[in-house]
């Protein structure tokens, strides 16, 4: 089993969100984007990112294709599929529900 990452299960949501904003990114760019946009708070570990990407690809939420970079090395670019967009919506509302529930508990306690 991959070790649990610090994002507490929200990695899928973040990756889908990033890809919905900026199509066709490679793994490193996705990682950097999450890091940058969260103000360096959220750090994705490489060891979690790629298994997650491949898992989502298998689920049909994202698709990938190879491109050749200027350096001659090939890179794998990811983009969102229609199923991915739907999944993103679902994950987002789930996230909202969870966070608001957590907030409610924090307020009430």
């Amino acid at each position, binding site marked *: 089993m991959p070790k649990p990452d610090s994002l507490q299960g929200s990695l899928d949501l973040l990756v889908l969100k990033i890809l919905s904003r900026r199509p066709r990114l490679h793994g490193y760019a996705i990682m950097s984007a999450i890091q940058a946009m969260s103000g360096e708070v959220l750090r994705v570990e490489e060891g979690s990112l*790629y298994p997650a990407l491949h898992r989502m690809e298998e689920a049909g939420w994202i698709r990938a294709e190879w491109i050749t970079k200027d350096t001659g090395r*090939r890179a794998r670019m990811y983009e969102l599929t229609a199923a991915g967009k739907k999944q993103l919506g679902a994950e987002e509302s789930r996230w909202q529900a969870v966070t608001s529930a957590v907030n409610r508990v924090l307020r009430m306690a």
Partner: protein
Amino acid sequence: MSLWSRIINVVRGDRLNREVDEELESHIEEAMGQGRDPAEVRRAFGSALRHREASRDAKLIVWLESLRADAVFGWRQLKKSKITSAAAILSLALAIGACISAFRLVDALLLHPLPVAGADRLYVASRQGLSFNGIPGTFDGTEYPLFQLMRATVKDQAELIAVSWAQRVDLTYASDQETEKAYLQYVSGHMFGTFGLQPALGRLLTENDDLRPGAHPYAVLSHDYWTSRFGQDPKVIGRTFRMGTGLYEIVGVVESPFTGTEPGTVTDIFLPTMMHEGVTHADWSWIRTLVQLKPGVATEPTCEKLQANFRSFQGERAKGFTGIPKQKIQNFLNQRIVLEPAAAGVSDLERDYRPSLTALAILVALVLLIACANVANLMTAQAAARAREMALRISIGAGRSRLVQLVLIEGAWIALLAAAVGGLFAWWSAPFVVSRINPPDNPARVFLPADWRVLGFALALTLAVTFLFGLIPALRASAIKPASALKGGEDPHSRRRLMRALIAVQVAFCFLVLFVAGLFVTTFDRLSHQSTGFSAERLLTLDTVTESPQASAFWDQVADHLRTVPGVEKVALAGWPLLDGNGWNGFVSASGAPPSPFLAYFLSVSPGWAETMKIPLIGGRDFLVTDTSPGFAIVNEAFAKAYFNGENPLGKSFEKTSDHTRFQIVGVVSDARYRNMREPITPTAYVPFHAIDASKLLMNQGQATFIVRTVSPNPLALASTLGQEIPRARPEFRVSRIRTQLEINQSHTVRERLLAMLALFFAVVALLLAGVGLYGVLHYLVLQRRREIGIRIAVGAQARSIARLVTVDVFPMVLMGGLAGLGLGMVSVRYIETLLYQVKATDLAMLAFPSLTLLAVALLAALPAVIRAVRTDPVAMLRAE
């Protein structure tokens, strides 16, 4: 990822690994570009291997890995109990092999579409209704003028094709001394175009060969014949052959694999229908009408149109009928045209064997089910022995599905090995059965391709069988509660119930197979011991043809010559041998009465024929050389009974109503079989071989059969000598076929013999399997209850009560199964009635045979287990526990 790409992943695991590595390398490169320490990035990744495992479809990898492990483990399990595994595999192999074999036959004869365009739209136009004799049935013959009428009527909906029955003919390529046999079919020239067939050489027949009767002497060869007879010689085009009085030119070879429209016969030569005498006769039904509907056309309206043609044609014909009873004519007019699907072609063989093959296929399936029940029992017993192992697996975390998989894979091993052995069995047995279908001198030829259909069937069968016998044991094994199993106190009753139920099922099926086999064997026995009314011993028949019709005196001369050959006892002439399938019939009016409603049969014979055949003369005299036909007749007893109310018919006369010829009865002979073994003996009139025409002149004859009774018990020893002596006597005479009368008689029971032989074989297999199954279950039960038995013996139980204990709950199952089988048998007998002869399902003997056999086998199978139980040594047993 789709299922497909998952499978691809497994096959291309290496490539996938490389791709994952490449992606990671690309990531590290990016990171380095951002100024990070490569070593630190690599550390963040952990080992690349871990990534591969996690990244790839992890579940699939684990699954495949477990599959491999289970396969290896299953193989080891099989090897551990070699004898049980071998027994399971062999019994299953026999059943699977028989199933594949049956499928090959059924497919080749009944299912496999003809290799022509639009085979799925092909039908045969048959007429359904009461025959002349008032017997309901279907007849697929058509008269050519009717065919032409029908073809024109439905030309917008369908293309009609005329094909004759494939017939075995004599033809010569060089001199007349070298006749050879070939299978020939007259076909519409446009058949080849309609079927989308291409020539392999030369040209095919076309619409232009369908124009004028007798004007298109062109022949097309099948690829098979071109290969076997001419070694694919391209110079065959333009060669001629002679058949009868006609000369034909070979114009082409049709591409393989088309070999005619009759499954069971490989046509060698195709001639245009125009070259058959029958094309101009409105009363010769010698062709089949194949109907190829245009795409999207429905059968019903087309059939209606054909029916309209048919009715007016029949009505026209009936006007010309004289001397036929009214009711018969009405039967004739009430017939209806039906379109029967003919995608696989049409042949008498196929029609003949459809019910037999279907019955056999069902027997085979039953045997397979028995074998499956056996293996299921075996595996259940084994699973019981492995209950602790299973419990252990569960307690260390194996999931239920994993255990199901484990047991199923073991089953798959058995099934796969069985299928492999069974495939070999089918490879051998299907051609063997085909070779037994027809008499040896006229073998059926069925193409039995080992193609994807057969392969697919075998695979599907293997899979089905695996689940059939593997699933229940697998589910049971996986439902084990580890705590109770590890304590050794698992409740065994549910398992026993299952095994007992399977025993009942086995016995039921076994009873059914035995019962049906008994019916088939009795049918064959009754038929082959049917009295023929003549003696076939030492009789040789020589079918003889002449170049052109010869005077009767010359025929007599040849017969006289044969009488001088050493080893010949008697010689006679006849139009054809009795029981060879030929028939000549007509309605008869006796002593001026109106024609009777049933047909009489006629056969022309020479003086001395009855004596040669050893048919006793009851009254009157034999023919004299001066007797002619029409004029005189010898009749059988059935004839006397039918037309003269059993009075002595000697000296009386009758009229053949079709041509108003009169015959005076000069002799009465006892009944002999003319047409077949099944029907009651037909009223028969034998008429003199010397036939005269309307102006009382002797007519010439082109073919007849010499009947020779030899001195030696093996008549075939004289066959070649006689074959040479006939042309020596008169060079115009040629022998076209030599058979013993015995062979002809036996040809009537070929199907029954085959059916009886195969059914008996399967009955023995079923019995063996059921016996082994019962033995296995009892053995297991005794093993399982050995503690209890030991204690009972220790406290003084009698041997008798121990035996009762062991068998008490199995024998009710045997009884129940037997009763169920009996019920099934009674129901199924309705479907095989047409295959039976003089045997009733309710005959006591028919029921006693399977019951007693099964009982005997059950007792025999139970004996070892009972002995083992009784001999249990309580001291040793209890100590071991």
